[in-house]
């Protein structure tokens, strides 16, 4: 049950193989739209996302308000567009924190001594057990309710996935014959890491990041739904759902727009991660980890949102 290691063909080959799949083209298209909206959202919005209009409360879709208005008469489309940036950037921030906190110790653990390795694995096990939302709420409650505090806590919980995937992949290559050859040829540790190992680790980490981004976006939506991280009235996808919840009797279909935004974006990220992973596997021309390396249990999907 060793984790699949990427093909030696490299990242470009993987991307080219994946690009042939229609699901990848669709995912990239969706994510491109989301990215554009995330950057330009506030400018694309037809109204001020915070502007209230008491005369226009809880209206259905119309020519003036394509997606209707919420309980304060704010334009839903404008809030959806303006909220994209907040939601997506928060998720990206969490993934970035997770990348740094996971990949660096992951690489280090392969080359550090056994004591450090043991300690790292225990901390990782501990982090893997913590439920995302509860932990982030706890950290935010203790430190301060701000977006960066919440995303740092979320990133910390995403780190174990990156740690494991980096460690497993690095282990596979660190014992490879060409790395031994490089060592014998007198290459420095830094050079071996930079030239021979990192390029092989990056694709796997990139795929993991796509999956983690989906997880992060789900968590961010749940947190903003609870008012953790980004506080109202700033528009977020989760916050819009929380606002709609009190007025379901009047506008039962109001949650549809933010719910679809979350679902479609997360779906695109997951589909992309799956497709890239599939395109990598199967061509594993990499050395298998030795028995000692295989002691660690198989990767488990983090399932704590």
């Amino acid at each position, binding site marked *: *049950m*060793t*984790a699949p290691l990427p093909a030696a063909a490299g990242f470009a080959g993987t991307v080219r193989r994946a690009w042939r799949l229609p699901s990848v083209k669709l995912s990239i298209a969706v994510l491109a739209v989301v990215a554009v909206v995330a950057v330009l959202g506030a400018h694309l919005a037809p109204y001020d996302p915070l502007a209230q209009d008491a005369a226009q409360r809880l209206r259905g879709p119309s020519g003036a308000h394509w997606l209707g208005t919420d309980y304060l008469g704010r334009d839903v489309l404008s809030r959806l567009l303006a909220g994209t940036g907040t939601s997506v950037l928060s998720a990206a921030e969490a993934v970035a924190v997770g990348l740094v906190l996971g990949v660096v110790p992951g690489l280090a653990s392969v080359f550090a001594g056994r004591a450090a390795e043991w300690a790292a694995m*225990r*901390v990782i*096990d*501990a982090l893997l*057990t*913590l*439920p*995302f*939302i*509860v*932990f982030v*709420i*706890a*950290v*935010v*409650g*203790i*430190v*301060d*309710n701000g977006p960066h505090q919440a995303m740092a806590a979320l990133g910390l919980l995403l780190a174990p*996935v990156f740690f494991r*995937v980096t460690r497993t992949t690095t282990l596979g290559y660190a014992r490879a014959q060409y790395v031994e050859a490089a060592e014998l040829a007198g290459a420095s540790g830094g050079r071996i890491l930079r030239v021979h190992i990192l390029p092989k680790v990056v694709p796997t980490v990139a795929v*993991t990041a796509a*999956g983690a981004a*989906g997880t992060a976006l*789900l968590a961010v*939506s*749940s947190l903003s*739904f*609870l*008012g*953790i991280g980004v506080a109202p009235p700033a528009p977020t996808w989760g916050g819009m*759902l*929380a606002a*709609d*919840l009190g007025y*379901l*009797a009047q506008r*039962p*279909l109001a*949650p549809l727009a933010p*719910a679809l935004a*979350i*679902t479609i974006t*997360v*779906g695109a990220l*997951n589909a992309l991660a799956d497709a890239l992973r599939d395109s990598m596997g199967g061509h594993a021309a990499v050395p298998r980890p030795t*028995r000692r390396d*295989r*002691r660690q249990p*198989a*990767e*488990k*999907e983090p*399932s*704590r*949102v």
Partner: protein
Amino acid sequence: MTALTLAPAPASRRRRLASPVTALIRGLATLLTVALVSTFLTFGLAALGGANPAAAVLGETATIEDIARMNHEFGLDRPFLERYATWLGHALTGDLGTSWFTRLPVAESIAQRLPVDLSITAFAVLLAVLAGGPAGIGAAVNAGGRFDRVVTAVCAAAATVPAFVVGIGLIVLFAVAIPIFPSGGYVPFSEDPAQWLRLITLPALALSLDSAADIARQLRTALVETLRENYVTGAVVRGLSRRRVLLRHALRNAAGPAVTVLGLHIPRLLGGAVVTEAVFALPGLGQLTGEAALKSDVPVIQGTLLTIIVMVLLSNVVVDAVVLRLRPGTGRRTS
């Protein structure tokens, strides 16, 4: 990130899990480490951030005397490590301190809220098994057929929809459009069992969807593989009925990954319960933690976090024990 497959456990893993007692000890060891690491983390953050009851309760108006007085009252004027050790010692005896705001014992507030989360989580686990199990078996039996394709599609869709969105959808469907269930609230089982069931059905349903999908997917994969094994063919050849081969021989061997996945889902269910509670206005642990977090009521936050971690780990130990019993040749060998 491999899916957990049915492949027989490598020798080392099998040896490690040789007896339920060893598994139990390992589980408890992890429990201790996790509890220590996470509580130390939250304690350290609180100390570093300078969280103190006077600032939390009185806000900007707190004077230096107020801060000193309340710090002394809650023991915050003692050194960090001493405080942490005392808290741990008390936690072991079930005393989690008192809230900075209400001055109520934290353990008491948690004991009041816990049944809500246990109710919806346990019911969600039951629903997930009842829905995911048959769906997975059905899909595996006619792999490639129409039912299989429907199950696969539903499972893929379920993975992208967060539980709280499902919850809102269920309210719209079954509380607003067709009002057969209440949209929220909670009544303890001891007061009105029928109403209790009505109130926890929608939250549990919302919570269970994702787990049901994962169970179905894992069970399908494992069962499809198992049904190709020689001993299954052998059993069929020997004239055993299809039903008996499926349920007695194949399912027992294929259930392992699904049970493991269920175990992995329990943290998600407990965490998801916190958000689901908010959707259905349930007075559970999530509400307690959320309110405490927005007020910076540190003892309550630490208490609820510890409680949830302990529950997650205890359920992991139970799941490990079940997996062990299901896997042929491991549980019996030493016990």
